[in-house]
C-alpha cells in the first residue's frame, strides 16, 4: 500500500475512507506512516477514516504518529520555591562531593610532592600561564575599577564629616583583606575553573579519562594535581597585583581631591597591617584550591550527551563562586574569632 497508488483516490476528496489492514503481521513503520498520512489528509478535508480491523492500539499509534510538533512552552512548569529548594540541595550535594574530592586530592598531592618527577609539568605550566599571565590584564583592570568605584561612592559621606581623606582607609582595608582576593577568585573561576571543567569534561566524554585509568594512571594525580597546584601557587601573586591595582584605582579619586600620594600611603601604613596582606594572600590560596577543585571535579563528573561539557563548565563556575563566597565568610568569622 503506497501513497502514490492511493493518490488518485485521495485527490477526489473522499468523504469516508476504509483502510483494510493485513490480518496477522504487525504493521511496519512505513505502513504506519502511510496510514497516518492518509488519515490526516482525509480528516483534514473533513472526511472520516475507519480501519479494519480497528484496534485501540492502532488508533493510539495513529494519534501518536500524527501529532504535529509539540506546542512550545508545554513542558511542566516548576515553581519558584521548588527551584530555590532544588538549587539549595544541588549546592549542598556539590559541596559534599567537593569535600570528598578534596580529601582524595590531598592524598594525591602529598604523593606528588614526595615524587615530583611524576608530575605532568607540561599541564602545570600551561595551567599556571593561563591562570596568571593571561588573566593579569583583566584582573588588574577590574580591581582598579572596583577600587575607583568604592572610593567614589564613599568619598561624599566622609566629605560630609569633613574628612574626605578617610576614604583611603576604607579602600585599603576592603581591597587588601577582601576585594582583591575575591575579585581575583571570581575571575579565576570564570576563566580557569570553567576551562578545567571543559578540558576534563571533554576527556571524560571521549573516554580519555577511562584510557588513563586503564593505563594505570590515576586521573586525579595525572590531570588534576598539576592544574590545582598551578593555580594555588600563582594566583596569590595575581591577587596581590589586583589589590595594588585596586588601591591605585581608589587613589585616583583621592588625587582628584588633591590628596597627595604620600598622605594616602601614610594612611594605608596605619590602617593596613602586614598580617592583613598575609590574610588576603592566604584567602586567595584557599580560594584557588576551591575553584580548581570545583572545576576539575565538574569535569570528571561530566555525563554523556551533547550538552554535557557546557553544563559541566557552568557547574564549575557556579560551584566555584559559591564556594569562594562561603569560604570567605567562614574565614572572616574564624579570623575575627581568633583576633587576627
Amino acid at each position, binding site marked *: 500500500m503506497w501513497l502514490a497508488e492511493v493518490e488518485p483516490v485521495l485527490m477526489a476528496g473522499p468523504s469516508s475512507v476504509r483502510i483494510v489492514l493485513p490480518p496477522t503481521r504487525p504493521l511496519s513503520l512505513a505502513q504506519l506512516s502511510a496510514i497516518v498520512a492518509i488519515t490526516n489528509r482525509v480528516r483534514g478535508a473533513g472526511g472520516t477514516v475507519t480501519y479494519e480491523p480497528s484496534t485501540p492500539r492502532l488508533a493510539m499509534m495513529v494519534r501518536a504518529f500524527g501529532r504535529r510538533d509539540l506546542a512550545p512552552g508545554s513542558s511542566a512548569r516548576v515553581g519558584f520555591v521548588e527551584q530555590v529548594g532544588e538549587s539549595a540541595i544541588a549546592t549542598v550535594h556539590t559541596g559534599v562531593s567537593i569535600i570528598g574530592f578534596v580529601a582524595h586530592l590531598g592524598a594525591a598531592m602529598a604523593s606528588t610532592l614526595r615524587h615530583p618527577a611524576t608530575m605532568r609539568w607540561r599541564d602545570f605550566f600551561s595551567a599556571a600561564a593561563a591562570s596568571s599571565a593571561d588573566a593579569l590584564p583583566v584582573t588588574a583592570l577590574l580591581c582598579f575599577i572596583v577600587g575607583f568605584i568604592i572610593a567614589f561612592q564613599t568619598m561624599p559621606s566622609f566629605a560630609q564629616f569633613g574628612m574626605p581623606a578617610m576614604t583611603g582607609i576604607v579602600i585599603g582595608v576592603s581591597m587588601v583583606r577582601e576585594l582583591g582576593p575575591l575579585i581575583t577568585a571570581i575571575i579565576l573561576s570564570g576563566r580557569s575553573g570553567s576551562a578545567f571543567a571543559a578540558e576534563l569534561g*571533554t*576527556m571524560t566524554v*571521549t*573516554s*580519555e579519562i*577511562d*584510557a*588513563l*585509568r*586503564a*593505563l*594505570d*594512571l590515576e586521573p586525579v594525580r595525572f590531570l588534576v594535581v598539576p592544574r590545582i597546584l598551578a593555580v594555588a601557587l600563582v594566583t596569590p601573586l595575581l591577587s596581590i597585583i589586583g589589590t595594588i591595582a585596586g588601591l591605585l584605582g581608589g587613589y585616583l579619586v583621592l588625587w582628584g581631591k588633591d590628596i597627595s600620594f604620600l598622605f594616602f600611603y601614610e594612611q594605608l601604613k596605619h590602617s593596613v597591617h602586614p598580617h592583613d596582606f598575609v590574610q588576603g594572600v592566604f584567602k586567595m590560596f584557599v580560594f584557588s584550591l576551591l575553584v580548581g577543585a570545583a572545576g576539575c571535579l565538574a569535569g570528571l563528573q561530566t555525563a554523556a550527551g551533547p550538552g554535557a561539557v557546557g553544563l559541566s563548565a557552568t557547574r564549575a563556575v557556579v560551584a566555584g563562586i559559591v564556594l569562594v563566597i562561603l569560604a570567605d565568610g567562614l574565614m572572616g568569622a574564624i579570623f575575627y574569632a581568633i583576633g587576627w
Partner: protein
Amino acid sequence: MDTSIPSNDLLLAARGLSIGYHGKAVMRDLTFDVRRGEVVVVAGGSGCGKTTLMRTIATLLPPVSGSLAINGHELVGASAESLSVIRRSLGVMFQSGALFGGLTVLENVLLPMEAHRHLARPARVEMAKSLLSSVFMQDAANKLPSELSGGMQKRVAIARALALEPPIVLLDEPSAGLDPITSAELDRLIREFCESTGRSFLVVTHELPSIFAIADRMVFLDAQSRTITAIGTPKDLLESGPTAVRQFLSRTPPDQAKEAA
C-alpha cells in the same frame, strides 16, 4: 580452577560473571576463558553488551556479580595494588580510540612507557616508532589525533594498547571504519603478534572476514537470552552452532531464515 589447562596459561577466566551498570545486569552468567597465545573474538548484535564486557575486564566498570580472574588476579574485591597489577597486564583499545587529544601520535604511544617502563628515552622512542610502523602510522608520528581520520586514530590506539607489551590485549572493534585492505593488514598483525609473542587478544568485532581470519575461538553474546549462547571456532559454529550464531556468521536476517525453512 576446574579446567585441565595449567592455570598460568589461563590469562582470563570469567566464571558466572554478570556485567552491567549501576547494579543492573546487561549480560548474565558469562563463563569463558582466554588462554595464552589465543585470539578470542567476542561477537553479538549491536547493543548487546560487548563494550560493557570490555570495560568490565579493563577494570573500569565493577562486575555486577560472579568472578573474573585476569592474569591470575581476581578482579572482584581486588586491592588497589592488585588492581594496578591487573591494569598493567592489560592493553586496551577503546571503541572510540580515546587518544589523548593534547598529545601527538608519538607521545600517545610513549605515555604508557614513560609512566611504567624504565627504558632510556631513545629506546622508548625507537620502540614507539616501531609500534607505529607496525600499524602503518609511522608517517603521522608528529600529528595530533584531531588531524587523523577515525580509522587512523584506531590504529594509533592499537599501537598504544601494545606499548606496555601486555600479555592480554583488549580491542573493541579495531577494524570498524577501516577499508578492507587495511582491515586485512590489521588482522594479519593481530595474528602475528599473537603467534610470535604468545600474547592473547580479546577482540570485539562484527566483521565476518575478520572473525574467520583471526579467531581461534569465538564467544557469542546473545541479545535475547542476555548470555553466552555459543563458544567455539568460527568454522564449527558456522556448521553446527545454534541457529542465531549460524545466522550471524552467514549474514541471514531471522525473517529470511524462517521463510527459507
